[in-house]
């Protein structure tokens, strides 16, 4: 069995985001970048399945500028076998990303595609679903547990009402939740070995898919600052404020 796992390079989750003054986006120069956190879970789960013997090969893919290769190398350092870097210098919407992934799936013929449930930069949560639709494969989203059988996979997903267990036939698209596992650290020798693992490079333009963005981003701005809280002396004052100022009672 073979897994294709998609990883995205995003601004590190600890970094305080700075919006550009002209509202055209956010600053990324000299900002620490990392793998999108739920993508790390997707890689970890793929590698675990490989270690269990059920999966033969794990291929990590990232789409983006040259530095996306660092993100692929990180996946290789924790156990992926091969990398694919699809070079694209401009922003591509989830639809475009799904189209590219579909092309790669047709070529690599994986039994499953693993990816994070959403990316922490645009929070779209669309790529996995779109890919499944275009491939006409079953999809399992927000996965917090994976149990792989021969021809199907049993998935536990977190939903509003609690936990839902579903079984989907293979091949399938699986989007991963942060609760799925705790990603391992890359060890020094494995980082060294990762430098020697194969990484295929493809230009997004050469894939013959329409990557025109459909959505126009008009403006990016910071959320309004939260006002400082106040202390109330007693319940009466609280009720009065809730009634008269907040007008929620």
């Amino acid at each position: 069995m073979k897994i294709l796992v998609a990883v995205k390079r995003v601004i590190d989750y600890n970094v305080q985001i700075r919006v550009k003054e002209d509202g055209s986006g956010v600053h990324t120069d000299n900002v620490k970048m990392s793998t999108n956190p739920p993508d790390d879970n997707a890689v970890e789960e793929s590698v675990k399945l490989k270690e269990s013997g059920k999966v033969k090969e794990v291929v990590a893919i990232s789409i983006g500028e040259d530095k996306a290769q660092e993100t692929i190398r990180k996946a290789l350092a924790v156990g992926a076998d091969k990398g694919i870097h699809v070079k694209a210098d401009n922003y591509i919407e989830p639809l475009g990303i799904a189209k590219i992934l579909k092309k790669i799936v047709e070529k690599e013929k994986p039994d499953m595609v693993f990816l994070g449930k959403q990316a922490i930069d645009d929070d779209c949560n669309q790529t996995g679903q779109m890919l499944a639709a275009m491939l006409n494969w079953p999809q399992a989203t927000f996965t917090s547990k994976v149990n792989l059988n021969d021809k199907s996979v049993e998935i536990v997903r977190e939903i509003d009402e609690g936990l839902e267990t579903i079984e989907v036939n293979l091949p399938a698209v699986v989007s991963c939740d942060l609760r799925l596992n705790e990603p391992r650290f890359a060890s020094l020798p494995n980082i060294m070995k990762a430098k020697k693992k194969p990484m295929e490079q493809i230009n997004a333009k050469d894939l013959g898919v329409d990557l025109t963005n459909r959505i126009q981003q008009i403006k990016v701005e910071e959320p309004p600052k939260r006002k400082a809280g106040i202390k109330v002396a007693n319940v009466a004052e609280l009720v009065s404020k809730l009634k008269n100022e907040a007008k929620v009672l």
Partner: protein
Amino acid sequence: MAREAMEYDVVIVGAGPAGLTTAIKLKQLDPNLSVCILEKGSEVGAHILSGNVFETKALDELIPNWRNENAPIKTKVSKEKFLFLSKKSSLSWPTWLLPAVQKNHKNYIISLANLCRWLAEQAEKLGVEIFPGFPASEVLYKDDGSVKGVATLDMGLDKEGKKKDTYQEGMELHAKVTVFSEGCRGHLGKQLIEKFNLDEGKNPQQYGIGLKEIWEVSEQQHQEGLVMHTAGWPLDSKTYGGSFIYHAENRQIYLGYVIGLDYQNPYLSPFDEFQRFKTHPTIRKMFEGGKRISFGARALIEGGIQSLPKMYMPGALLIGCDAGTLNMPKIKGSHTAMKSGIVAAEAIVENIKNKADLSIYEKKFKDSWAYKELHAARNVKPSFSWGLILGIIFTGIDQILFRGKLPFTLKHKHADHEALKPAKEMPKIEYPKPDGKLTFDKTSSVYLTGTNHTENQPVHLKLKDPELPIKYTLQKYDEPAQRYCPVGVYEVQKEKFVINSQNCIHCKTCDIKEPSQNITWVCPEGGGGPKYGNM
């Protein structure tokens, strides 16, 4: 079972200006040498903080064509100012009356973090292996007592030191020569200085704490290339310190404050002095309406050659500010750190090829321009122990008339942790409340540093005696850790000493200033700590 080990010709601890320079120079001298650098930050530059007005002398020697290699050194110093502040007014000191060491017209305003990122690219092009996120946590020794290399920290331990599912054992890196370039108060450097008595016969080391913010201001408030320093208010004349205000590119101002850690009053809070400084009428108008976009702090070396330890030992070298090569009156250490790196590389190559003794490193360093500079600068810092006015008068005579050639050397008499006076002898200091626009609290400041440490890991700020803070330090000094720590790691809550180690920005001030030397800073799990951008 023995830990896994890797062999290198040279292992370098710390990817700052000194360590990266050593690596580049080594590869230039002999491309066949295997060289690796361990870095505790999550990426190169993440733990780098500096003013920085950069003198290119050492870089000119290392990479002469840096101008054509897109080095992030763009903003030439175009104008200089020096102000003495009193509470309400300011007096501009004519620049022609400044000692030559404080003239900056050939220098550049840079982000040292960005320079390090660029140096790391140059090093990697030459085949240097750089491992960010891997702190060296332990020095390894051979049977004969010489340094064998270092070991990286075990990852995936919980608070009690038990192995989590993600546990990964640290690994050993063995080298013919190990180079320590951890910066000021490196935690391994500190152990080596003690073990090999490297500071024997030297004055106690002197430190300062530097705090820095980056501001984005309006075009009218910005004058790219302007370098400004101030002395005086809000510090009293016994406390050594001052500010820097550098107008960098993109309408940014690098604003900072340095305070000597030999201050006496346990109620002093360097962070709050810095915030208060900004409320001076002259300073306030420079930043009004602007936006603070970064914050950070780091200890720095101020001891000069009187406190410079022996820089070599069997199997290893101390370079840059892990030894202490900063030039205090010049307020610069990057160029001398880099020069020590160049010289170290030359010595290492001779050691590996011709079995030359590592002591040639110190000889070479003493023959270099960097040491001459430090020698001329040696009397400035100690003279300020007489107070600001006498310090300035003496420095004028020493630096302008005699150009640092006076035939005597003043001494540093005390270590910084011995300088604090008991709380009851010193006045309390009331700091104004932050307004959230010009001045800020510690919480919102640490937020800007991007600092994080994986939860549930062993506390990396070790107390030798866990009872001491409450039993002794609180009584005698009103527990100054609450104030000298710039990000509020230490709190006293209901007679309990709390360490919020996840907020630690690795500045090392506690390790230096704790009056009983009760706090030891050790490395947290790799990748933890601040994530500075262009500091």
